[in-house]
C-alpha cells in the first residue's frame, strides 16, 4: 500500500539548483542596512550578513534572499562530495535543517552530496553552533582527522560569531560561511555546491 501512496503523492523533490520555488526561499533578510543592531550585525555603517539573526527588530524592509553565503576557497571537485556534520553547540534548529537535506523535499543525494558518519571520509566539515568548552577539542580533532584537500563550511549566525562570544574561525581555518538563523535547506545546498566548485545557479 505504501507504493500506491508514494505514487499518488508524486514528485515533491525540489528543482533547486535549476530553479527555486517561492516555498523554498529562505526566511526574510534585511534588504537595507539598519542604523544599528543590538546583536552586532552592523559595524561602521555596514551590515554583516553573517551575523544577522533575521530578528526583524531593526524595522528596515525585509525580503527573501538566497545569495547571502560567502565561499572563499572552493574545492575543485566536479562529482561527489562527502560531508561530515558537526554540531558544536547549536540550538537544534540548524540540526533539523541539515536533517531535512536528506528528506524527500531536498534529497541532496541527487546532487552527489553524501553525509558520512566519520570525518575520515569527509571532504567538507559542516559546522554549526557556537563552540563550547566541551566541543572545541572535538572540533579540532575532527578537522585534523580529515584527509586533504579539506574545507570547513560554517552554518548559521551563532557559528559566525553573533550572540556568542566565540566563533568557529577562532579554532579552525574556515573556507566558507552560510548566513541565516538557521540557514534554510536551499541556502545550505547552495553553500555546499559552491564549496564543491559547482556553481549553484
Amino acid at each position, binding site marked *: *500500500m*505504501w*507504493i500506491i*501512496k*508514494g505514487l499518488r*503523492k508524486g514528485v*515533491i523533490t525540489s528543482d533547486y539548483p535549476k530553479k527555486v520555488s517561492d*516555498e523554498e526561499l529562505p*526566511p*526574510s533578510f534585511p534588504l537595507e542596512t539598519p542604523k544599528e543592531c*543590538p*546583536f552586532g550585525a552592523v559595524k561602521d555603517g555596514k551590515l554583516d550578513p553573517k551575523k544577522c*539573526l*533575521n*530578528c*526583524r*527588530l531593526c524595522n528596515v524592509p*525585509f525580503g527573501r534572499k538566497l545569495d547571502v553565503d560567502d565561499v572563499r576557497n572552493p574545492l575543485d571537485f566536479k562529482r561527489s562530495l562527502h560531508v561530515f*556534520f*558537526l*554540531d*558544536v*553547540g*547549536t*540550538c*537544534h*534548529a*540548524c*540540526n*533539523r*535543517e541539515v*536533517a*531535512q537535506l536528506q*528528506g*524527500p*523535499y531536498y534529497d541532496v543525494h541527487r546532487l552527489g552530496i553524501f553525509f*558520512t*558518519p*566519520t570525518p575520515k571520509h569527509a571532504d567538507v566539515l559542516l559546522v554549526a*553552533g*557556537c563552540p*563550547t*568548552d*566541551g*566541543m572545541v577539542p*572535538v572540533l579540532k580533532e*575532527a578537522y585534523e582527522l580529515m584527509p586533504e584537500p579539506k574545507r570547513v563550511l560554517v552554518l548559521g549566525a*551563532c557559528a559566525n560569531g553573533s*550572540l*556568542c*562570544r566565540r566563533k568557529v574561525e577562532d579554532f579552525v581555518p574556515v573556507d566558507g560561511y552560510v548566513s541565516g*538563523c*538557521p540557514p*534554510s535547506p536551499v541556502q545550505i545546498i547552495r553553500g555546499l555546491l559552491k564549496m564543491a566548485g559547482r556553481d549553484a545557479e
Partner: protein
Amino acid sequence: MKVLSAVFRKNGKFLSVWLDYETGRAELEYTDKLPDRKIAPALISDTSPYITIPPGSNAVPLTFGPAAGGLGQAGAFEILTYGERIVSIRPVYGYKRRGIEERLLNRPIEESVVVLERATGNFSLAYTYALLKAIEENPDEEVWEVRKALLEIERLYNHFNAIHKLAGAASQKVATMHFHALEEDVLRLLSRLTGHRYGFSANRPGEVRILEPKAVERLGKIREEFRSLREELLESKIFIDRLHNTCRLSREDIIELDAVGIAARGSGIARDVRSFDRYYSYKPVTCEEGDALARMMVRLEEIERSFEIIDSVDVKAVRSDPSVKEGLNLGVAEAAHGDVLTLVEVKDGRISWIGLRGASRVNYIAFSRGITGNIFTDFPFGLESFGLNFADADLWQGGVE
C-alpha cells in the same frame, strides 16, 4: 501530587520549584541543601558518575558521543555494558552549555525574547510562550489565543519528527520519508505564517506577528495525509514489535523521577500543563503501558487534538499593550516533549535573573531508567520516543556553576 520541577542556583542558595499538575499551583522554596528527591542532582547538573562497576564484573564502561553520527547532536551518554545489554547508563550534560542565557539579561524585553528563541530552536515558541506568560500583566485574550495556535503548530512538527525518527530506526524507509515530508510541510506553513521556518520573532511582548493568516488553511491537507499515514503505520507489525515493551517506565518510576510530558503521559500519569492553562480547556491524553509504543500512541492522539485546537482559533496578527510584571514570576508551557519552565526576575522593566528548565533535563534521566536492561538495538527506539534534545537539557541553571 507535588512534583519537583526545577532547581536553580540563586544568591548562593538552591531555589526549587514544586509544581502540582492537578491544580497548577506552584511553590518556590529557598534551601541551603538540595531537596531530597532522586532527580535533584541532575537538575543542577551534578556530574558525579552514577556508574560504578561492581567488583568482579565483566561489564565495561563506554562513552557514546559527543560527535557520534547516530546522535546527530553534541551530547553524550556513558554506558556500562557487557557488549549487548545496557547495564547502566547516564546522560552527560555540558557539551552544549553556551552561556547564551547571560545574553538575555539586562536588555530591553524585546531583545531578550529574541535571544531566548535561540536557546532551543525547535521549542522556541514554547519558551517564548512561557516567558511572556510570566511577565505580561493584564494580558490580551486574543493574543494568547493565537499564541496557543502557534504552540500547537510547533507541537505538530516536533511530533512528526519523533515519529519519523522512530520509523527510521526500524528501517521503515517509506514511512520515514512520508513523515519527514510532513514535518517539512508544517515548517513551510510556519514560514508562510510567521516569516520564519521555526516561528522565531512571532511571539513579541504584547504582540503576535502573523504575516499571512491564510497559510493556516493548508493544515486541512496535512491532516488528511496524516490520517491515512497513521493507519498504514500501525498496520506494520515489524515496526510495532520493535516499539512494544521497549524502554518501559512504570508509574512508580515516573513518580520517583518526577518525569514530565510525553514520558509521564505514556505511563498513565496525566501531567500536562495544558490541563490547567487558562487559555486551554484540555483533557490530557494518556496511555497505560509506559513503553515506546505507548508514547507514540500518545503522540498520534495529540496530533489529532492539536489540529482541533488550531481549527478553533482565528489565526491573525494581534497587537496589545500589556505592562510588564515586576518581581520573580514563573511561566510554564507544554512543549512537544514536556513542559518548559521559565522563572524570571524583572527589575525596572528588564530581566535581571532567569532560570530555564527544559523537559529534556528531567526526561533524559527517565530515559536512562527505562532503557536500563534493554539491549543496544533498542537504544534508538527508546531515545527517539521521548523526543528530547541536548540543547534543551544543557540550559543554564542560574548563577555560577
